[in-house]
């Protein structure tokens, strides 16, 4: 389908239920915020074209269900990811404490070739709420955790007001590109032809 060669960068957003994963994705891609998003069931993704050094990339951003119970689906959705975004709610300690679980679960299920250097980005969302008065996770604490996990880039965001969202995703895309370039050899451009001819001959048999 693509007439011009384009690279797909796959990004997975993870984090506890209700931290704002869907909102962040929609704010970045559609520049919209709604109070009425439904809890994500299963998974969905949005795409956005991004440009880097005269090259066009398609950023494919995957939004997944936040409840722990749905993690078994991860295998299907995480594979081939180029970057993983871990989101927590600065007003919820629990969602911050769970970042570690999400990170580990992702590494297990996506099993990237180089887990030590796989790019993560952490977002502390909902900084707008109550003018910051209901905040329970300090920026310092969050940054310390990110530093301990191999200097994960960290952003404080508000999906509602759009604060830092663009910046965060720029960074996400850049990191995805870095890891994506190493795997570029696996892009399916050349495999397609073989696959479709295989289908032809196989199809006639049955």
């Amino acid at each position, binding site marked *: 389908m693509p007439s011009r060669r384009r690279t797909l960068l796959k990004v997975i957003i993870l984090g506890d239920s209700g931290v704002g994963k869907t909102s962040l994705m929609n704010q970045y891609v559609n520049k919209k915020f709604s109070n009425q998003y439904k809890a994500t069931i299963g*998974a969905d993704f949005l795409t956005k074209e991004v440009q880097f050094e005269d090259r066009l990339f398609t950023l494919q951003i995957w939004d997944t269900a936040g409840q722990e119970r*749905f993690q078994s*689906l991860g295998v299907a*959705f995480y594979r081939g990811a180029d970057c993983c975004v871990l989101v927590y709610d600065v007003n*919820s300690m629990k969602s911050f404490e769970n970042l570690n679980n999400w990170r580990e679960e992702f590494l297990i299920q996506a099993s990237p070739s180089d887990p030590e250097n796989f790019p993560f980005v952490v977002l502390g969302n909902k900084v707008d709420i109550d003018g910051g008065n209901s905040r329970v996770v300090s920026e310092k604490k969050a940054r310390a955790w990110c530093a301990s996990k191999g200097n994960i880039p960290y952003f404080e965001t508000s999906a509602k007001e759009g604060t830092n969202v663009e910046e965060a995703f720029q960074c996400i895309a850049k990191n995805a590109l870095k890891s994506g370039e190493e795997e570029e050899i696996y892009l399916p451009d050349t495999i397609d032809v073989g696959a479709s001819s295989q289908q032809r001959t196989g*199809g006639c048999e*049955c």
Partner: protein
Amino acid sequence: MIEIDLHDLSDDADYADSMQQGSASMTRSDSSNRSSSSEQVVAEIVYLKDNVAIHPTQHAWERIRGRLKLIKQGGSLLMTWIPYEGQSSSARLSEKDKSLYTIRAVPFSDIRSIRRHTPTLGWQYAIIVLSSGLAFPPLYFYNGGLKEFLATIKQHVFLVRSAEDANIFLVNDFQDPLQRTLSSLELPRAVSVANRPTSSVARSESSSSRTDGEALDKNSTYIQQNGRQRQKHNDPRNLSIQVLEKFSLVTRFARETKSQLLRESHGDGFISNAMRKHDKKPNSYSFAVESNDVHKPFEDIPVPAESLEYDKLSLVWGKPRQPPLGSKEWSTFLDSEGTVTDSEALRKRIFYGGVEKGLRKEVWRFLLGYHSYDSTFVGRKYLVSIRKSEYETIKNQWKSITKEQAKRFTKFRERKALIEKDVVRTDRSIPFYDGDDNSNVKCLRDILLTYSFYNFDLGYCQGMSDLLSPILYVMEDEPESFWCFVALMERLGPNFNRDQNGVHSQLFALSKLVELLDNPLHNYFQQKDCLNYFFCFRWVLIQFKREFDFEKTMRLWEVLWTHYLSEHLHLYVCVAILRRYRSKIIGEEMDFDTLLKFINELSGHINLDATLRDAEALCICAGENGEACIPPGTPPSLPFEITSMYNQQDDDDVL
């Protein structure tokens, strides 16, 4: 009745007519049995048997007799069965019926197996099962000849006797060992549908109280013994109607399968164009056009030249939907005590039309199993009052947790937080849940939290609020909604198990159903590594709640809850939707990601009535074969302990 039939047999009027009958494209042979003479090399008749009949209804005297032939053409063997022209054995069978059942040149490459049946009483018959898993109605050999039929086939095609059942002959040996295993597993069940006593016996059995001959699974239950065995038993008189309905779809399926194969081998569409030229008659069978969706049934149906009739043979896909059940009609289902006298008929009625808005409050309680059909007005009133106080008791368990207590009760706090996060994003666009400080939203929270105490092990899981929301909307009463939700969760609870096994078993069953009902699509998914069917996860988890608007969801649910044709109609709904978009999916070569996105974006664009009709047809079509695809205990089946309370009525005598 057997006497009448035998007497009929001696009447040779049909037989004489049959002498003029024959396929124009075939070389006509003389009337002697198994003539193989032929002047042209076009086709050679290697077997011919007259007075081979089918029984299209449950009445054995209503039958269509015809001539069965095996024709060798080129390298392939074809089977035809052409009914005799002229008067039928019954005036009720029209010429249209006859042409409907006509088997025109089915190549043996399309046939999976032949089941031989030689009962001690009555006629021998054979059931031809197609590769698609569908079966033609039994062919009764009034004058014998079944053995020769099989022997002749054996001379020309590869025929293997099934290891599972000596009466089953596999026609195509499968190249794929897995396929072979699966097919051998499915075969006994495949044929068990038709594997009934001869129709005369069936009729005497059916003189019991039942009045409805159209039900497929009416008193069927799953009988599991240590998970080892599962059998279904149908009312025997349903058999023939079932086969009839099945057959009505066979032609269509055969055609579609064929068209699919041809499309793949002749990508240029040459055949389909060539065929359309032949078909100049205006098409009066508008019912065959199922939808205005992407899937256009007539556009690409290349049929072999000698079987243009196929187009005429397709029947309605499922019955037309009916208006919803209204209160006046509802009252006819209740006796003076308030007992539902014929729950089967009620469920059937709702299956085809749903329930009127205002009546849902009353009827859903039955459908969900909160009220039993044999309960009375008085009994129900009593139950409601008992349940109300029971609900309050459970609710108080969490209501009485103090703030101090909650501080040391992490699990409770987390559960509550999760529920509170979800209820405020459940159906808020519906006026009922709209606005700040909406009391119905609070009610959702209370019920879900109470449920998580009622069933502490399962707790709360995302998706539950989606399932509860329409129930509360309909019931408008907290305790009543709670107990209806409890009843629903009896069946759908496993969807939310920690290990997700409930959903996984349904997705597995779905993959098996697609394999059975749309093999090319199955192959496509296999090729694209999509057989986990995760793209249908949302459909299954919350019963299409996010796929239809609020009103349509309620309509769909009440139809599903009737469990009228199958407890697993929702899986056939999945197949129906996938089939509807199959040409788009395959044509655009969707991979897993694209497919997931496509499926997610179908939300709000699915035609419910058309889908239900397709699902019904697919369900009937798959029959026992379909149910065999669904592992025992797959939600929304009730757990074994409950279903096993029904007794098995008629042991399958053959298997």
